[in-house]
């Protein structure tokens, strides 16, 4: 039986169909979840996709945090269900306090779309186990508010506990503290990532196919159980 990965659609979600496609390409079953419905349809893992939920009008992810689906998600995440937030999804995870810190306006003050080199630094999270530690990958990055900030104590703790999942290489595109591109919670099941692995799963449409590892990681974690 294939692993069921839910992809939540909020009003204003944009990369939801892309995330579902990535799940399928990786060999999983993508299940559409609706923001207004707290039923998680027996999924094994969930992705909060990129986009501009609620127009990102107040603060990115601030309004989405209060959606009915988030109640069930927070509950399940706290009991270990794998949850990946990409871009806007990362912002929602921070706003929901599932992950520490916050994402702020890019220091360039511009929206930035580029093919970004990253180093995978944590290969024990539910979403990165299929990478080799230190592996360098290139996947698209596209955001206007992707600067990761947290106080120094939090940053130190993240680094000490190996919870920085990926770091920017070459250029820091948005002013993220300590070049952080993605982080995980203590348990390793919740991951937030600013760049977009779901746009690097087919050689035809992505700069590489390096992004597929995030999706195969979570699928394999169930097979190996």
């Amino acid at each position: 039986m294939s692993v069921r990965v839910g992809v939540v659609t909020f009003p204003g979600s944009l990369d939801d169909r892309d995330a579902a496609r990535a799940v399928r390409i990786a060999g999983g079953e993508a299940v559409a979840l609706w923001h207004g419905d707290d039923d998680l349809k027996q999924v094994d893992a969930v992705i909060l996709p990129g986009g501009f939920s609620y127009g990102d009008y107040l603060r990115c992810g601030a309004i989405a945090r209060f959606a009915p689906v988030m109640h069930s998600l927070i509950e399940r995440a706290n009991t270990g269900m794998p949850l990946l937030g990409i871009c806007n999804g990362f912002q929602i995870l921070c706003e929901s306090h599932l992950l520490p810190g916050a994402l702020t306006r890019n220091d360039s003050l511009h929206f930035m779309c580029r093919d970004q080199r990253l180093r995978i630094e944590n290969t024990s999270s539910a979403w990165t186990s299929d990478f080799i530690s230190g592996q360098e990958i290139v996947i698209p990055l596209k955001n206007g508010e992707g600067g990761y900030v947290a106080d120094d104590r939090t940053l130190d703790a993240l680094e000490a506990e190996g919870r920085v999942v990926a770091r920017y290489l070459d250029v820091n595109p948005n002013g993220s503290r300590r070049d952080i591109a993605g982080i995980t919670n203590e348990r390793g099941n919740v991951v937030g990532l600013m760049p977009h692995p779901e746009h690097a799963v087919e050689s035809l449409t992505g700069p590489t196919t390096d992004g597929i590892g995030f999706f195969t990681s979570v699928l394999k974690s169930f097979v190996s159980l």
Partner: protein
Amino acid sequence: MSIDTVAVAEVSPEHSQPFAELGLKPDEYQQIRDILQRRPTSSELAMYSVMWSEHCSYKSSKVHLRQFGEKAPKTDALLVGIGENAGVVDIGAGWAVTFKVESHNHPSYVEPYQGAATGIGGIVRDIMSMGARPLAVMDPLRFGPADAPDTGRVLPGIVAGIGGYGNCLGLPNIGGEIVFDASYSGNPLVNALCVGAMKHEDIHLASAKGVGNLVVLYGARTGGDGIGGVSVLASETFADGGPTKRPSVQVGDPFMEKLLIEATLEVLQAGLVEGIQDLGGAGISCATSELASNGEGGMHVWLDRVLLRDETLSPEEILMSESQERMCAIVRPERLAEFMERCAKWDVEAVVIGEVNASGRLTVDWHGDRIVDVPPRTVAHDGPVYERPFHRPTWMDALQADTPDHLERPTTGPELRETLLVMVAAPNLASKSWVTSQYDRYVQGNTVLSQPEDAGMIRIDEATGLGVAIATDCNGRFTKLDPYAGAQLALAEAYRNVAASGATPLAVTNCLNFGSPEDPEVMWQFAEATRGLADGCLQLGTPVTGGNVSFYNQTGATAILPTPVVGVLGVIGDVATRTSMAWTDAGDHIYLLGDTNDEFGGSEWANHVHGHLGGLPPRVDLDRERALGEVLVTGSQSGFLVAAHDVSDGGVAQALVEMSLRAGTGATVTVPTTLDPFVFMFAESAGRAVVVVRPLDTGQLIDLCEQNGVPLAQIGVVLTASNLDFADLFTVSLDDLRREHERTLPELFG
């Protein structure tokens, strides 16, 4: 507050009306009185004035635009032609594609961010109104001099607006243009293109059919946006003081538009919609009169049911409001509940504002009073038509006689190297990635090619790989030197760009940006360009499916360069076969297809190095373009073209620089013995492309070119090294080229 009703109008024929303030000529006002057999009410006057404006009625351009239909090449591919919100083209396998380009020039000058943002919003709704899912956008832009202070104000705002709106909608930006020229100072051009796709059975039209069907207005609430002019009327109906202040600028809400897209696609998919129309210029006036005029009967509207953002709006203002993010649907009564449910699911407000009837009239009531009673065709379609006088400008002879032949040319290797470095940094040739990196090109996961490739390409059908490619082009300097040839050169370039990507050119859209039609010399440019484009489309077998005209682009008495932006759409059976402009393997052979002549009239070299514009543009030969296209497409499908790039602005040198920077590896280049090195590098002769093949495949390329009568010459070999070697002349490193090519825009706009 008194309301001007039909009953009042009937008994007060002498009441004087501010038609001139609303832009109507005395004879046009008289024409309205003749149609109605009485004076119009102020609401009717509002409707006619806006629907008969140049922008909505095409009254100055209509007689010329007819050629696009009359000269249209016969093709079965055209499912919906000119006249609808957007044309629809059959691309096979049951799929249809709709695309269109529109201008939002003036609003973008006044308020760059919002003007450009709402330009994207408007064209996206046009595409939706055909029943299609919008798939991608493009943005052909024109600005004043790159270093002018006003360009520094306007450009960043426009780019941020296009990105801000398009990114938030989830539409990848797959291409566009950025051109600087002094003629656009104070009058930038913001053209926006959208492409969408649907299955054949999902094509919808803007027509109100079926007596008893309901007219539903949904989306954003109606506010006082964009009704500056009509406030004249509103103030008439207020006892004193006039209405409260009306915004002069429309503000876009891309989030609402995103919801509108999803809600619209759902109601269309569920079969809940009989006819559909977007609300753009002229708002409810336009939507209701066009729907009714295209339908078979009449329509009645209860205007007081319209949901308002501002309760002080008068009926005239509601009729004319250009509030964004609204759509109008014709729905059968028994499907209304379901329609409303789907809208509610997406938090989109909807309200029934009218009903289709058999009266043959468009009637509008305001709290029980009849304020409009008109034959809808007279508003929407039978507006005035002008045969504006035009004549060839007296200055054309002198302009064409002032050829670039006397301009000083570089001759030695070091001089040519220096010129190359200057040219790749020219604002018109420099890397545009400062702009394009502000646009999301990945969203939807179907973008196969985007900037800096020749054409944008998207996959439509994941199962088969069916896709389309689009390019837009126009060299306004060429069009100034010869509008007929210039329009054909624009067409040829877009056609060539699409072919270079491996797609077969199929159809054309256009946005004709010109100065004032009341100036006979501008009108001549327009007439010539239109004729050139129509003739060209016939010759290339690519019909015009739609487009847009933007007049009055001028500052004072000086018109912009005539700028007929041409968009060509091509189809590709499997996007996996597309050709990129990046070469890959060292040792591969580089060929130049087509003939190079000493042609510098209107060239970027004459413009950038000498500030010169004169002479004749490059000769255009559309049969040769077609033959070149055949080679590019067949070579791509046969799989032996490793890379291809069209040659246009900046000539062969620019093309080679772009290819090597894209690939990250250099080449050694040999100037054909028949050519002067300078002419070889910088001439802008049409009908050319640079292609790359593996050494083993050169025979195939030569055969294919022979079959099609396309001349070719080997001009180089791909290297592993990172420099571009012009044999016996000079060598330049890719690092130097990249630095010069990429620094211009960031230095100007930060």
